[in-house]
């Protein structure tokens, strides 16, 4: 009796649904295996909130990527203007320094759809668009760097154990003991002053901000990954890989790493919104990005004008809140999709 020869013929008697039992049938071939990742994505696709949030995030991403094109299409730019050309420069009267066109005192001006900033006369829309780019660029790069560092540290310390683990854990704990905000406040101006020559000031500032955020962002990933590796290491499939004679590098990257997708995706989903918020927060305190457009900086500038010109504050504020909210809710949905036990 050979399987190939007799396989299909004997099927009928065994099942009430013989057509599905046939291993060679069309259905069986179409239903190819679903990895846990695919299952999670499938769950995510059915989640309406997740889809909405993803659309919002994609919108901001597009704005950030095509900032130049969009600004050109609206005919706005970051260029500094002579303030008194667009602002009311009469210092003796009330409404000092408010724009001559558009909000808050004049009707909508299509040349400046978001209005103009008081005191400087800068275009709000241009600042908003480039602020979005700054925000996502910094948050994205910081997330990337801290994930890579965190994953490597977590993998190594979890898998090797012993002295290496002790040293890496001490470093992780050390960085966790440093209050992030204070450290960022202290370090960022120093780095900027140190390396910021006048022509590349803006790039240096953004770079140093990314560095600082990454410097204080990797520990949670490292801890998460380490914990996960410690529990995975005791799973029998890792023993099986050892018994098969798999080299350690292969075990780390082929056996362990694929099982870390969930914690990695989860920590990215937590980091991205946190970094967007942190970037804006530092700028709000006057210590983050000051050389180029940033939502946080605009918010700080707009607070004194709140009573007369609330729109000036609302624009960047809604930008930050919408982006952070969408990222957070999406992250929450992602976490649910990967771990159905924590379902709300």
């Amino acid at each position: 009796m050979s399987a190939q020869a007799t396989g299909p013929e004997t099927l009928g008697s065994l099942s009430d649904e013989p057509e599905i039992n046939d291993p060679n049938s069309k259905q069986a071939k179409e239903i190819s295996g679903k990895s846990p990742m695919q299952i999670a994505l499938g769950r995510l696709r059915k989640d309406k909130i997740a889809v909405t949030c993803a659309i919002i995030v994609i919108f901001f991403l597009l704005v950030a990527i095509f900032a130049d094109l969009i600004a050109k299409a609206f005919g706005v730019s970051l260029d500094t203007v002579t303030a008194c050309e667009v602002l009311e420069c009469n210092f003796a009267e009330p409404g000092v320094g408010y724009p001559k066109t558009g909000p808050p005192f004049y009707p909508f001006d299509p040349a400046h759809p978001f209005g103009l900033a008081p005191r400087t006369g800068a275009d709000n829309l241009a600042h908003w668009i480039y602020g979005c780019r700054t925000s996502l660029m910094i948050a994205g790069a910081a997330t990337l760097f801290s994930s890579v560092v965190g994953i490597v540290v977590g993998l190594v310390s979890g898998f090797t154990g012993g002295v290496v683990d002790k040293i890496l854990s001490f470093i992780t704990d050390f960085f966790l003991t440093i209050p992030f905000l204070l450290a960022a406040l202290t370090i960022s101006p120093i780095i900027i002053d140190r390396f910021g020559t006048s022509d590349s000031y803006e790039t240096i500032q953004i770079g140093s901000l990314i560095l600082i955020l990454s410097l204080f962002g990797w520990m949670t990933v490292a801890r998460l990954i380490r914990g996960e590796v410690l529990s995975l290491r005791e799973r029998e499939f890792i023993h099986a890989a050892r018994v098969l004679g798999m080299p350690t590098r292969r075990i780390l990257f082929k056996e362990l790493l694929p099982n870390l997708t969930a914690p990695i995706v989860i920590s990215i989903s937590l980091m991205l919104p946190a970094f967007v918020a942190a970037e804006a927060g530092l700028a709000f305190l006057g210590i983050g990005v000051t050389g180029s457009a940033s939502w946080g900086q605009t918010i700080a500038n707009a607070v004194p004008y709140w009573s007369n010109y609330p729109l000036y504050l609302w624009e960047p504020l809604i930008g930050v809140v919408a982006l952070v909210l969408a990222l957070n809710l999406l992250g929450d949905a992602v976490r649910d999709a990967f771990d159905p036990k924590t379902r709300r």
Partner: protein
Amino acid sequence: MFAYVVKRLLSGVVVLFLISMSVFLLFWYGPSEPAQTICDNDTSNRCTPARLEVFRENLGFNNPWYEEYGKFMKGVVAGREIQFGSTTKFDCPAPCLGYSYRTKAPVFEEMKQRMPATFSVAIGGAFLYLTLGIPIGVAAARRRGTLTDKALVSSFLVISSIPYYLFALLTWLFLTISWEIPLFSDTGYFPITENPAKWFSGMFLAWMALGAFGCTTYTRYSRGSMVEVLNEDYIRTAKAKGLRDNTVVYKHALRSALVPVITIFGIEFGTLLAGTIFTETIFDIDGIGLWSLQAVAQRDLPVVSATALFAAAVLIISNIVVDVIYSVLDPRVRLS
């Protein structure tokens, strides 16, 4: 347990040492001249290069860093003398964290003055969000799956997803600027010993902002933790004993559910105590957070390093306290 605490304290001291050294080095090799700040602040004279050089010399910036760091450490342990300008000499008893370049006041004294403000903000806020968040979370967990639960959880999720400082900022803008509600309009720190009513009304808005925001996150933590515990086998055992629902929930489930919440709380409370920078900045409360922000902007090295050390010390201690509490709450945990 005692050995454990000692061990942790020792490693905490090492961490503090490393942090103070890093701050010191950062400023030492940092680009901006700390002497410039103190020279500019010396309002009686214009800062000439010659005067700057005097300040450099006096502050020890012409000596190697380890020499100065040694002096600093000696000051912390035994106190020392500090000289500003050519004439003024100050005696700085231990623990000497130096004199502020800006105000020329001893840093330790200034810090002591500002601590009550920060502690008032942190303790009041934490009290509010715990007393609100945990009961709401427990109630939601008991009604899990119902419409109320879902509505509550999703609305709290939305609120807690907003960056805290924007939440606080909007609270302040609306309540004091737009609506000018009297109770909230006079924010700031007034010592409780002088005028408790004024202290209360000055703190109230900050507490509200911290409490309302923190309550949403703590509701979610405690709800999640509670839901998990309610699925445990020993809860089924408790029910099988014939215990009342309330006994099951409040005696058997709540104790286990609180353990992870307390862990998170301990660490976050440490961060709060270490300096509520945003809260103090937005509500104009003169505490450690605001102080450190100003010091950074002014390159006031002694103040920055003092706040960094203070913050780290608070975090280390709160971590140890959390671990000890954990081992008391959960008899399975043995500290080693």
